[in-house]
């Protein structure tokens, strides 16, 4: 069965508005989700799970979150690292204050805490736009990190200033902390990002997503059809920060195990923003592709000389890796400034007409 849209006729608005209107997409995505839950925990080694798949899933969640805000609602934010830190520190405080609380509830509550902070720092967006807003959100980034460094209460007065993920179980399996098997942490991260990717897709294809995009594309026209700018932008900030907060909590609890504020510095904000830009602004698929590109490519490049049988010094290899990585980012941005998701869309349009050029 060739992958193409031609010949698939929809007979109801419901089928036309489906997330994946093309049969092959539906089959493939369903199979991929099932496979993602089953195959890696059985097959992949700890290195693959710990070093590649878990961070990929966590960053995909953060990238979806930022994409809702920047890609869909058009509000540029450099506060992602700060909002992730809010999630991580909230999760730490919640698990230590309420040891009985389910870890799933802890993640969700940490997301809500980040959402509240995100709302607060979203208020300037009513008056400031574009790059200036990015500078205003930069304030969130630096203020939050400063706060977590300065106030020892957040780390339960630990002299090292680090927060550590305690052991917590879901259905009898340890999923966080030093004793959690990588497979369990992987499934946990996957479950969260799968559910929230679907939620994000549902939001952007409905009433809320359309009001976000209306504000992004033409705020004056949006107002005249009844979109209230402040409410709409704040909703975007809140939901986006929720995603980033959950991702931040996961970063410490499922991936790093323990962390200082350094794990959430400005580089984190840039990293997630790059994922969104390279993957494609205003595309959920793009968030996945961007996260995969940024997380997987350096690892692939690191292993490349070895698999080609080349021997070189570690320092030289690191330099070359960075150069190729930077070059590839530039290449993709020049070839398709709208991101990897747009490349995919163009391919799909070509297939619709194939084998005819027009």
């Amino acid at each position, binding site marked *: 069965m060739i992958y193409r849209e031609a010949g698939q006729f929809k007979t109801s*608005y*419901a089928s*036309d*508005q489906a997330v994946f209107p093309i049969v092959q997409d539906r089959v493939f995505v369903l199979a991929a989700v099932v496979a993602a839950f089953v195959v890696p925990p059985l097959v992949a080694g700890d290195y693959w799970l710990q070093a590649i798949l878990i961070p990929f899933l966590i960053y995909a969640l953060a990238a979806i979150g930022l994409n809702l805000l920047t890609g869909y609602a058009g509000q540029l934010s450099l506060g992602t690292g700060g909002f992730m830190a809010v999630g991580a520190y909230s999760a730490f405080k919640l698990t230590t204050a309420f040891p009985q609380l389910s870890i799933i509830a802890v993640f969700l509550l940490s997301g809500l805490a980040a959402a509240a902070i995100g709302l607060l720092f979203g208020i300037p967006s009513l008056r400031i736009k574009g790059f200036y807003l990015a500078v205003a959100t930069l304030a969130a980034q630096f203020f939050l990190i400063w706060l977590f460094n300065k106030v020892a209460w957040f780390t339960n007065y630990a002299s090292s200033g680090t927060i550590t993920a305690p052991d917590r179980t879901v259905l009898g399996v340890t999923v966080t902390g030093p004793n959690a098997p990588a497979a369990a942490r992987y499934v946990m991260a996957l479950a969260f990002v799968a559910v929230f990717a679907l*939620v994000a897709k*549902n*939001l952007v*294809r*409905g*009433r*809320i997503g*359309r*009001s976000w*995009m*209306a504000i*992004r*594309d*033409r705020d*004056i*026209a*949006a*107002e*005249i*059809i*009844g*979109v*209230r700018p402040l409410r709409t932008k704040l909703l975007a900030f809140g939901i986006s920060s929720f995603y980033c907060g959950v991702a931040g909590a996961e970063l410490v609890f499922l991936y790093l195990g323990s962390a200082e504020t350094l794990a959430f510095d400005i580089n984190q904000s840039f990293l997630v923003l790059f994922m969104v830009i390279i993957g494609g602004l*205003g595309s959920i698929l793009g968030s996945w592709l961007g996260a995969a590109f940024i997380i997987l490519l350096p690892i692939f490049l690191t292993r490349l000389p070895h698999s080609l049988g080349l021997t070189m010094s570690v320092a030289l290899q690191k330099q070359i890796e960075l150069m190729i990585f930077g070059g590839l980012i530039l290449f993709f941005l020049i070839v398709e400034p709208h991101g990897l998701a747009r490349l995919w869309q163009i391919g799909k349009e070509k297939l619709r007409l194939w084998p005819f050029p027009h």
Partner: protein
Amino acid sequence: MSHPAPAGPVLEVNGVSVRFGALIAVNQVSLSVARGQIVAIIGPNGAGKTTLLNAVSGFYHPYEGRIAFEGKDRTRLQPPDVAALGIARTFQNVALFKGMSVLDNIMTGRLLKMRGSFLLEALYWGPAKRQELEHRAFVERIIDFLEIQAIRKTPAGRLPYGLQKRVELARALAAEPKLLLLDEPMAGMNVEEKEDMCRFILDVNHEFGTTIALIEHDMGVVMDISDRVVVLDYGRKIADGPPAEVRKDQAVRDAYLGVAHE
């Protein structure tokens, strides 16, 4: 679409002035738009037509005077509140959401008719899904009406200008407005597109009974489709009446042909 229509004019503008610093863009203009009418606002460039429309839709607030909609004062409302009253408009330079498909653009016109329930929308389940499909069905009727079926999935930014204007009209119609404000709906169109647009405007007026106020420069169109013509010049109203009368008015001729202002 049979609302129990309150008596009296739909829109009443009473002695409205809009100033930007020392510049008085609209100077004590009064006009009223009766239910079911098509009223054209004309005038030379810079006469204050768009400014007046912006004041009605809440982007500017008049320095003096009152604006009433269906008998209620609404001089100081913000644009979203104006939309909630049932006033929709299009813009002189098309203001579509360029990154969204034509269908999504028109669906935004239904935003005010949709009820929000965050959790259900996040799950796209039950009432949230039903609501989406109901509004989709309504939007499809407008798509049929304006004959834009073939482009419903096209991103609005990729359309030619004439079609963009038509999609903008569709978005305004999707809100089921009581009063439709059109700012130069035919600017930059060729003769054929203008004829199409005229027919749509008349059809909207006849079939839905929508009251329409429009700004237009093409005199042929204005004289053909409007029930009343209001003429502005240098921010003041200089004539107001049926097209045939306005055509003969000396002040209007002076304004268009040019006469030395004292």
